[in-house]
């Protein structure tokens, strides 16, 4: 025994049950909440991951693309397994396994050896390189390393090798998504702009969205509109591929030639204003055609705005079929508004999702009572407040910026709501507060097939309203007195 802490050697003492009871009650008090909100350094149950995870998602959105983590190998295993658990799909990615000697000599040798091996074994059409902590801390020069790799012929000179610096000690997964996406587009479109050429297509940027159903929904709606589209970056087939007895390492993604030609698009629209600001800024400066930034189309009004903008950009009428689809969605919400009206919600997640949840709830006459954003800016707070100010149901709702899910727990037990919307990590707080959690975010590791059900568009409204209302009705059926248990609800 070393007892390096030099603490006194004691007999084991079991904590008395009354003390456990006291603390159990104490953590639900206003006093505890204040202490909890006074935290300066400790983060407990954060609602965000780190940059490289988002970078890997962006890379998976392109045809034949192998995500490549420059850094420790454990990082790659963490990103992969997180994506595996959410989508229940493969998430192939390699790492160059930097170790102690990399810390001393830099990671160039690992990067070069890794690129050569990955290219030979997995035969990608593109390798998207992004960094985890180690090379960021020691200051690896990716630009030089990759240039040298091509000179050394580790990979063919013509192989696209976009790269992004995605330090985990800055921002969240949405920022890594942005950095990787812009780098991929910069790489693929280089020298592809043709004076006077127009693809006639819409470049649609869904943003850092982990719902494959959303991507399919955009494509379906645009097909219905007769608007040809290039989705940048399209993960729908990558993370929702058929089980047919064969494994394809690159199951989907935007075609590289389409991505390259996207610089000659008729219009480019981002639906992830908070997760693609860098990409969009660069596109505005470099892409032909019009450039539009729209909020994630969650809820009826935001879907209307999205479709009208597309119609406007392409000089198209919104077809009868979509008008009917809207009508059916509105039918669904008017039929079921009574189960959501006045219900209080707590919502948390990435900013684009948050704006969507809040718009949708306000449309339903529900109250987004607590809005928690774990990493955000003044701009996001202002935009959320503007949304709240636009509806009587937003009155008195509170925005909690840069807070975590342990803060959320305090909120739920001291200032209760009827339900929570967020990712699986909120299940602990929701359980303690004895309210349902609607899993609409990322990651969802404890329910099946959620990523296949779109939350955007009119169909998204139907999906959300069905799930929420039926759950409230289930709760009533499960908890009501016998004499209140009736056939109709």
């Amino acid at each position, binding site marked *: 025994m070393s007892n390096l802490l030099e603490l006194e050697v004691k007999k084991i003492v079991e904590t008395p049950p009354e003390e456990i009871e006291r603390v159990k009650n104490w953590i639900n008090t206003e006093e505890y909440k204040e202490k909890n909100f006074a935290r300066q350094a400790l983060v407990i149950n954060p609602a965000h991951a780190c940059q490289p995870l988002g970078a890997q998602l962006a890379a998976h959105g392109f045809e034949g693309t192998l995500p490549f983590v420059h850094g420790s190998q454990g990082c790659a295993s963490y990103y992969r397994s997180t994506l595996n658990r959410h989508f229940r799909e493969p998430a192939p990615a390699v790492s160059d396994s930097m170790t102690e000697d990399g810390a001393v000599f830099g990671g160039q040798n690992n990067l070069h050896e890794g690129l050569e091996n990955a290219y030979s074994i997995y035969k990608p059409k593109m390798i998207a390189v992004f960094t985890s902590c180690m090379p960021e801390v020691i200051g690896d020069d990716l630009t030089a390393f990759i240039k040298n790799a091509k000179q050394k012929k580790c990979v063919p000179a013509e192989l696209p090798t976009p790269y992004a610096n995605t330090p985990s000690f800055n921002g969240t997964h949405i920022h890594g998504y942005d950095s990787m996406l812009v780098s991929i587009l910069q790489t693929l479109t280089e020298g592809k702009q043709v004076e006077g050429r127009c693809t006639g297509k819409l470049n649609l940027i869904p943003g850092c969205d982990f719902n494959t159903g959303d991507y399919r929904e955009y494509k379906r709606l645009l097909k219905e509109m007769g608007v040809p589209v290039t989705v940048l970056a399209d993960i729908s087939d990558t993370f929702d591929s058929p*089980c047919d007895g064969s494994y394809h390492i690159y199951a989907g993604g935007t075609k590289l030639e389409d991505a390259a030609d996207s610089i000659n698009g008729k219009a480019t629209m981002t639906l992830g204003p908070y997760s693609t600001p860098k990409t969009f800024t660069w596109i505005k400066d470099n892409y032909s055609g019009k450039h539009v930034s729209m909020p994630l189309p969650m809820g009826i009004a935001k879907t209307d705005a999205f479709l009208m903008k597309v119609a406007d950009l392409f000089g198209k009428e919104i077809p009868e079929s979509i008008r009917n689809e809207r009508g059916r969605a509105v039918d669904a919400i008017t039929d079921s508004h009574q189960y959501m009206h006045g219900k209080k919600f707590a919502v948390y997640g990435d900013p684009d999702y948050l704006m969507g949840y809040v718009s949708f709830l306000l449309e339903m006459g529900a109250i987004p009572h607590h809005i928690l954003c774990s990493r955000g800016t003044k701009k996001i707070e202002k935009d959320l407040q503007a949304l709240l100010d636009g509806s009587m149901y937003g009155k008195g709702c509170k925005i909690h910026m840069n807070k975590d899910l342990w803060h959320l727990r305090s909120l739920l037990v001291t200032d209760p709501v009827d339900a929570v919307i967020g990712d699986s990590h909120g299940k602990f707080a929701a359980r303690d507060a004895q309210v349902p959690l609607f899993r609409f975010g990322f990651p969802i590791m404890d329910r099946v097939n959620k990523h296949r059900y779109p939350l955007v568009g009119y169909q998204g409204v139907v999906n959300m309203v069905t799930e929420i209302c039926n759950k409230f009705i289930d709760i009533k059926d499960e908890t009501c007195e016998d004499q209140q248990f009736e056939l109709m609800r």
Partner: protein
Amino acid sequence: MSDKIRKIEGITKESTQAMIDEALSVYPEKARKKRAPHLAPNDAASGCASVKSNKKTVPGVMSARGCAYAGAKGVVWGPIRDMVHVSHGPVGCGWYSWGTRRNMMSGITGVTNFAMQFTSDFQEKDIVYGGDKKLKTLLAEAHDLFPLAKGISVLSECPVGLIGDDINSVAKTSAKELDIPIIPCNCEGFRGVSQSLGHHISNDTIRDYIIGTREFAEPESPYDIALIGEYNIGGDAWSTKPLLEECGLNVKAVWTGDGELEKIAATHTVKLNVIHCYRSMNYMCKVMEEKFGIPWIELNFFGPTKIKQSLRALAELFDDNIKAKVEAVIAKYDPIMQGIIEEYKPRLDGKTVMLLVGGLRPRHTIGAYEDLGMDCVGSGYEFAHTDDYDRTAPEMPDATVVYDDPSEYEFEKFADTLKPDLIGSGIKEKYVFQKMGIPFRQMHSWDYSGPYHGYKGFEVFARDIDMAINSPTWNLVKAPF
């Protein structure tokens, strides 16, 4: 160890080597040379490792390995339920390892157990100016908000070691100020070649900071034991601990599944250490043997054959009282196990399985499959050492393929050649093989099921294996048109 050398029809040393050569043929020369010694046909007769292991991962090949931090947080420290485990550094590592190992805990979350994610969430300024001050503040905050936490572990992520923070000094000062154990663990992910070094570093910190700092309140008994390397995945410890107690033994501490800091700290007074996951905790067994004279025995709680052998080997170390109790336990469970085998074996007899897991499972579970009539046709580890492969050789049929830290490509190629009826591996592999139409069970997490340990676990294991292999859904993979 199995009694006789088994063979699988159609598998010879030559056929296995040809399969390996074929898989490596696409590799660049240098990578092929590095990988070749890690892949080999099993030499059951030798009882020795046929592959090299515990070497650096070859860059870019798509390894399944994790890092030292993963070994420290996920495996050794994380399961201790009454401590706050701080992932010290940027937000990601702690977030990815939050609730994803399935080391189950009793108690009340946030009150007496802390199955949460605590992090210092490093920002750019912490990298530039160092994180020691932040650490000191957050330790006080954690103690304040979680007064019943018995201690705090500080688990370093990559940047901490690179920027030269001194967490050891902060831990020592704060431990005195707060009067609770605060254990600094320098388990940065870039250290070593896999999770394995994280286990070792964590064992060393238990040795240096914990063991011997508590004493059990009750008097010692000759039947006091500790259960080491049992992480309570899917409730495993809730099967094995009662089983050992039924045999008349006092399980004074479990390392570290559903673990309690103070009981771990007092383990130096037990009479025997029973180790299950040898890879992750043999270090501490050896330390306790040297320093405190505590003998240890390595057991296997998978499947009735191995459980029975294990319990009898355990009984040999005790008096007739325990021997009688062990025989009574075996007599009680034998018919129940026979019933399970009679139910499932007819549907599983002759089926084959390939394994790629961590610590002990690539060898320890083979007997459980054999109890169900199945054969293991390939096995390997993410982060094993030579002593693990030595122990594996006699468990596997002769000439079957052994793979150390295989790339996804190698594993896929082997599976494609061997066409096993089941693959037992991890989440990263699961969907690759399911797309190929091969039934799969996650063998790190018990695929959200469990327990698989002990008699109670075998019933669940048998049901799950049957369910995976014989699910009618697999018949629908090929479209009829």
